[in-house]
């Protein structure tokens, strides 16, 4: 058991180091620095990627509705936190909108800073719960569908949701096709990392609980799971609801990161992007999803921008490094991973597995999946 303990300590050390790095970034760089921005965005993506992994990787349900649930969370967060005084200007075409309260203001009796924080977190929670509720409602009919039908049905739901939110009929709440903005946001990377980290920790706990084991059993062999008394529809729905909850919260955080909310960014290409992150990281590895989120966002938003603008690694080649080259390189890498490294960066390993030295019997495992 000492090796278990050592693993735990090492894991904690790695996590603490990551957090410390974030704190250093926050302390030394201004809030508008690109490093702060990419860390924030990557945190949002890692939460959503983990939520997708819970469903696709751990329960074996191939759902493509993540962007739809994020959309719901993003709107819920924005609608509930826009200061009352700003509503007239935000809902400029809808007479100031229908709602005339703002959660951070409701909690202002706790003091300004704390009240705002509590209000923001409450709004995130509401977003998550709404997403979970929707998942609960559509789960019953949709989750009976087999893998690829499920994928296409959830994709369809997300698209319907997007139409609804852009519809002027709901404008007094959603502001139709217009932007929601002026709501409070986290300005520090550490806030994003911490919040996403805490939520991911909850997912890790879930996965290692008896329910998480049941999810994995369903993924490995549905027939056997059912024969061993695991209620398939109940557990699938549970996984779907929980995953959607985290996607909803992730959507709320996405709203914070973007500063403005519109329905357009939440289209299926966002879901695909998250799916590819999960695949890069390894389907069935939380650690993999986290690492892949950071790699993906850091590369696409920051490090590899040079590929699009003529100069990369000091090489100046405007003919080659032009618009779109970065994404072309990206998609080639992704196809290579999909075809030749199907287990992604991490396979189904987690951080402690990497840190603890394991006996050599693990060798066979590669052939396992």
């Amino acid at each position, binding site marked *: 058991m000492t090796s278990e303990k050592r693993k735990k300590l090492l894991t904690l050390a790695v996590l603490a180091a990551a957090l410390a790095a974030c704190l250093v970034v926050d302390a030394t760089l201004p809030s508008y620095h690109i490093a702060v921005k990419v860390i924030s965005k990557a945190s949002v993506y890692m939460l959503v990627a983990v939520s997708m992994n819970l469903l696709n990787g751990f329960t074996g349900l191939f759902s493509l509705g993540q962007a739809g649930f994020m959309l719901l969370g993003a709107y819920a967060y924005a609608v509930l936190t826009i200061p009352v005084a700003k509503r007239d200007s935000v809902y400029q075409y809808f007479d100031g909108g229908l709602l005339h309260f703002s959660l951070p203001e409701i909690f202002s009796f706790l003091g300004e800073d704390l009240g705002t924080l509590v209000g923001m977190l409450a709004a995130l929670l509401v977003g998550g719960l709404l997403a979970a509720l929707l998942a609960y409602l559509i789960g019953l009919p949709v989750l009976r569908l087999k893998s690829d039908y499920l994928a296409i049905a959830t994709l369809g739901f997300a698209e319907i949701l997007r139409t609804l939110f852009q519809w002027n009929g709901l404008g007094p709440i959603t502001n139709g096709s217009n932007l929601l903005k002026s709501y409070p946001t986290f300005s520090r990377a550490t806030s994003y990392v911490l919040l996403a980290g805490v939520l991911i920790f909850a997912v890790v*706990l879930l996965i290692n609980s*008896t329910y998480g084991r049941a999810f994995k*059993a369903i993924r*490995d062999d549905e*027939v056997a799971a*059912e*024969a*061993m*008394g695991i209620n398939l529809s109940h557990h699938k729905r549970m996984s779907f609801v929980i995953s959607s909850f985290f996607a909803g919260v992730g959507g709320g955080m996405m709203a914070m990161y973007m500063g403005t909310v519109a329905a357009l960014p939440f289209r299926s290409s966002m879901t695909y992007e998250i799916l590819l992150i999960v695949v890069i990281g390894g389907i069935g590895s939380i650690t993999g999803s986290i690492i892949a989120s950071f790699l993906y966002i850091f590369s696409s938003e920051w490090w590899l921008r040079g590929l699009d603008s003529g100069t990369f690694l000091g090489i100046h080649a405007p003919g080659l490094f032009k618009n779109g080259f970065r994404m072309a390189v990206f998609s080639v890498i992704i196809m290579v991973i999909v075809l030749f490294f199907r287990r992604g960066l991490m396979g189904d390993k987690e951080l402690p597995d990497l840190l603890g030295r394991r006996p050599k019997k693990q060798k066979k495992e590669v052939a*396992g999946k």
Partner: protein
Amino acid sequence: MSDPILRVENVTMQFGGVVAVDNLNLSIDPGQIVALIGPNGAGKTTAFNVITGVYQPTNGAVYFQGKKIIENHPQGKMKAQYKGQNAGAYSHVLSPTPDKITQLGMARTFQNIRLWKSQSVFDNVLIAMHCRRHSNVFSATFRLNRKEESAQRKRAQELLEIVGLADDRGELATSLPYGKQRRLEIARALATDPTLLLLDEPAAGMNPQETDDLTEFIAQIRWDFHISILLIEHHMDLVMGISDQIYVLDFGKLIARGTPEQIRNDQRVIDAYLGVAEDA
């Protein structure tokens, strides 16, 4: 005598025009070991699948511990196509999913081993206890169920020791040799805390030595766990050695039932098996 633990009543299973199980009647008393035998394609596994809720029978009913758990009658297109008997005898539809039936106290193994392949030996047994949990998803996630969890872990370890897999607990289930995988399947089924255990060809692919051990083991667990057992098997030594009752199926029809002694001397059974090479 008390109620039979399991009673299959007039069960017919028809796929399109093919009658796979034809008006099967079968009962198991508490503590009995009952074998279901017959040539390949006789409908044994289909009968298993009906009893465990995987298939909905076309007609007939199944009682478990005196309570009716499954019932059906020909409906829709099947009304016209139905070739079996007792068509008018049933009018209700009772069709629980397999997990409900397992929770009632019936557990099974699979002919073509279906272990959870990416899980360890230990986890395979542990997961099977999930159906007996009392914790909900919150208490389980936030570790408020430590007592239950540790009780389950302890029990899983015990079960592994009973089937003799304690040394392999950390291995991946699919990395075990064949015989051990079969034992693990039995341990997993036992982990659901059944009163009736259904074994689908538990000795398939085993050598004579392993088969003998298994025979002994099955006889043993009947007493240790106070359970009844229904088993499908081709190894006649095993069947004759431990069964209290034997049912013989051929082309979906029950052609004989009785004690091993009676079955051994039954002309119909001998005819049915004639030319059928046994792999025992």
